[in-house]
């Protein structure tokens, strides 16, 4: 038998968290191997996405990769708006100030382009240390010896030992689950993001948004257009495309039995969007992924033995009110974990890396952003149904409506408060009731028709690229009763009630005169979003390296 391979550090996942960790490790001469399951870095990833460089953060991505913004991003965000919607009434707040708070810069990004560019740099850097970056390799678990984590196991490679394992494998981290640090149980701990990348004719973005080449805009949408589902919509300008999507609390999607693709369509066909879109609507890609809510799941101590979790794998995804910050925190955490290991190693105590990383997350103020201590107090009070009901009733009553009218312009300022935006409770009130009332009381009717005709689910699936791992489904339903797994029929972004071409289907089986409603699963159209890992009773894994869906935009 040949000897086991070993590297000083193995980084699992080549998203922003993994790229940052690997770059800092390599700069500190740590022999680093990066393993990414996609055919190319970025081919599995989706974000909105606005990438922030925060003034207060110890690391920003362009500190680690020079030339990053020129080569790997789309447009910067120069204006930021929040639209409160009620029917065709719209009240728009300019929240550019909130956006610029603590922001050095912020660019829209498309993940295939961004991550594959980063991966090239990471490979060059890590190759110098004797490691490198490999795509098409899925890590399937932790290698243990005598109960201690000593490395990783993979589908495509023999087990590999390492002094440090960085789990930068994103939301639904199989390594975090394997280590018992994260579970996929509670829908209220997650959001589901769904996004369409829309092709725009030459020059249309500048014309229709009134921009000049190197400017860009961000728009958020909330109110009654998503019925009672808690969450909102976004629109960001890329170089020649738009990213338009939605982010909803997963528990709310499930409770309302909402169909994610229909909510996206509700946004795309809202009269407000007719300013920017027309009947020439051309969707390049439909994609979805779970998003952790750091306020609830950011792990206070994201390490175990030689394993450290960074980014989404550790739940480090901050929803700062309407502003979503995941990529930047993944970068910071990845870099801090790498820094911690290099320091521990130079003290001949590499096993201390985890504790040191935890301390750095705290000392650098990262944990405070992810999990504001005061949010816990607000939550205890505000996220109770009776409280929500009272708040909503007051808001909707003549008193509340009077209040909204009286506040008028000051509401815009309040919405722009970074402090308040961190405290927003996860209830109907801020997502649905308040924006609706604001639009009703202060908004103007916009009228007009929206001629966008979004593709149906079958076409959206048909336009995606898949390399199906025939005969080897990556998800299995453990309990196929409708009670246990039926929520997936609607919550899965590529399934729908009465749609036969998706992943989950509701079926009635008759045996011996007995009738049972069950769900059946076909993983072929799966976009690997992770939703059914949480809302259904499944045995959930990612597909083998290179298999499954391949995003071209992300």
């Amino acid at each position, binding site marked *: 038998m*040949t000897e086991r391979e070993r590297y000083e550090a193995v980084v699992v996942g080549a998203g922003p968290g993994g790229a940052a960790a690997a770059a800092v490790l390599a700069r500190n001469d740590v022999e680093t191997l990066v393993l990414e399951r996609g055919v190319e870095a970025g081919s599995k990833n989706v974000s909105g996405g606005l990438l922030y460089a925060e003034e207060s953060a110890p690391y920003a991505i362009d500190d680690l990769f020079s030339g990053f913004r020129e080569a790997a991003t789309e447009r910067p965000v120069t204006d930021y708006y929040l639209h409160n919607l009620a029917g065709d009434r719209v009240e728009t707040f300019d929240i550019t100030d909130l956006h610029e708070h603590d922001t050095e810069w912020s660019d829209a990004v498309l993940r295939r382009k961004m991550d594959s560019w980063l991966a090239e740099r990471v490979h060059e850097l890590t190759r110098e240390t004797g490691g*490198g970056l490999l795509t098409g390799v899925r890590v399937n678990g932790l290698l243990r010896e005598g109960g201690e984590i000593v490395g990783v196991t993979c589908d495509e*490679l023999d087990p590999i030992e390492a002094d440090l394992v960085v789990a930068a494998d994103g939301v639904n981290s199989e390594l975090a689950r394997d280590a018992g640090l994260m579970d996929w149980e509670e829908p209220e701990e997650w959001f589901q993001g769904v996004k369409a990348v829309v092709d725009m004719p030459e020059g249309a973005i500048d014309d229709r948004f009134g921009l000049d080449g190197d400017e860009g805009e961000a728009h958020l949408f909330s109110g009654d257009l998503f019925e009672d589902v808690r969450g909102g919509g976004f629109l960001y300008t890329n170089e020649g495309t738009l990213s338009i999507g939605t982010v909803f609390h997963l528990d709310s999607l499930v409770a309302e039995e909402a169909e994610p693709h229909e909510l996206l369509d509700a946004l795309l066909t809202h009269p407000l969007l007719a300013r920017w879109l027309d009947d020439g609507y051309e969707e390049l890609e439909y994609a979805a992924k779970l998003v952790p809510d750091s306020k609830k799941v950011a792990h206070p101590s994201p390490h175990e033995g030689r394993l450290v979790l960074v980014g989404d794998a550790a739940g480090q995804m901050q929803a700062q009110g309407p502003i979503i910050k995941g990529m930047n925190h993944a970068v910071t955490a990845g870099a801090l974990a790498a820094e911690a290991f290099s320091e521990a190693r130079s003290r001949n105590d590499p096993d201390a890396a985890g504790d040191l990383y935890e301390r750095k997350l705290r000392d650098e103020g990262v944990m405070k952003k992810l999990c504001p201590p005061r949010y816990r107090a607000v939550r205890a009070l505000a996220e109770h149904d009776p409280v929500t009901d009272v708040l909503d009733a007051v808001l909707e009553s003549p008193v509340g409506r009077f209040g909204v009218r009286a506040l008028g312009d000051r509401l815009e300022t309040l919405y722009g408060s970074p402090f308040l935006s961190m405290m927003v409770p996860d209830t109907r009130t801020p997502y649905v009731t308040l924006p609706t009332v604001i639009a009703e009381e202060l908004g103007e009717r916009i009228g007009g028709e929206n001629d966008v005709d979004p593709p149906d689910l079958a076409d959206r699936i048909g336009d995606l690229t898949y390399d199906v791992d025939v005969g080897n489904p990556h998800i299995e339903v453990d309990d196929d009763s409708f009670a246990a797994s039926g929520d997936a029929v609607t919550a899965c972004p590529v399934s729908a009630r009465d749609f036969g071409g998706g992943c989950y289907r509701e079926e009635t089986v008759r045996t011996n005169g007995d009738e049972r409603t069950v769900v059946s699963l076909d993983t072929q159209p799966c976009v690997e979003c992770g939703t059914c890992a949480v809302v259904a009773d499944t045995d959930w894994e990612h597909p083998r390296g290179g298999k499954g869906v391949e995003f071209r935009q992300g």
Partner: protein
Amino acid sequence: MNMVVLTKGVPDFREGQVSFDEDGHLERGETPTVMNPNDEHALEAALQTKVRQGGTVSVMSMGPPGYGDVLREAMESVYADDLYLLSDREMAAADTWATAITIATALEEMEPSPDLVFAGFKTADGETGHTGPQTCWAYGMPIVTHVVSLEIDPDEERLRAKRLVEGDIEEIETVETSLPAFVVADPEFEPSYRRAEHRLRHRDLREETRERAADHEEHMTVWDHADLNLDPDYIGLDGSPTVVSSVDPIPKAPAEREATMVDPERDEEMRQVFEEMAPLAGGE
């Protein structure tokens, strides 16, 4: 480990590429030459050995000067270090015997001498499968055919291969032999890279080769019969004991029937089809 991969240019038999004259003879001039498709497996086997054990890979072919492109293609896929083209009028129109003599002599001429020679299973044009075994006989080394996986022990100078018995995927045997040896890779050959270091080296080699393949002629040696000290009487057409007495074209399917278009929406026309076909169903 010094390796040589033998490859051959063959007519591109793919639809849209190949062209036949009226009698059904292949029009060589009109049909592009490509690398023999089965040779890809030989290249994969050599590449796997290079990645895992290190060493050099040379690609060798016998054919007209135009084969340079085939060699470049091979260079790119096997990340070859250099190329050998055996090319000369005297070598032309050789049968498998004369070819084997020529190649075996060229292999002997190589410095340093090869440890492993790889070839694909049958060429797409001749389909004989003779050249490999005859070359081994002429050179005097063992041959292992139908290889589906390969391990080399460079210290012991031995190879261990899994091979299909009688070409049957259901029956696999493991054989061992000393080096130098000749390996014929089966179309079922699966390269295996289970170590990260192998995949990383594979990536490095790809990047290095990209530059080399851009001016592949710099890395190509052309040998004629004189370079190899071969007597023209024993090579090429003159040295070929096989006589091809005649070539029978594959008979064209008679297609003299006339087609009638019918509109499936029109009952009248469909009835006609039915009436034509009904007697056939009765076995008439």
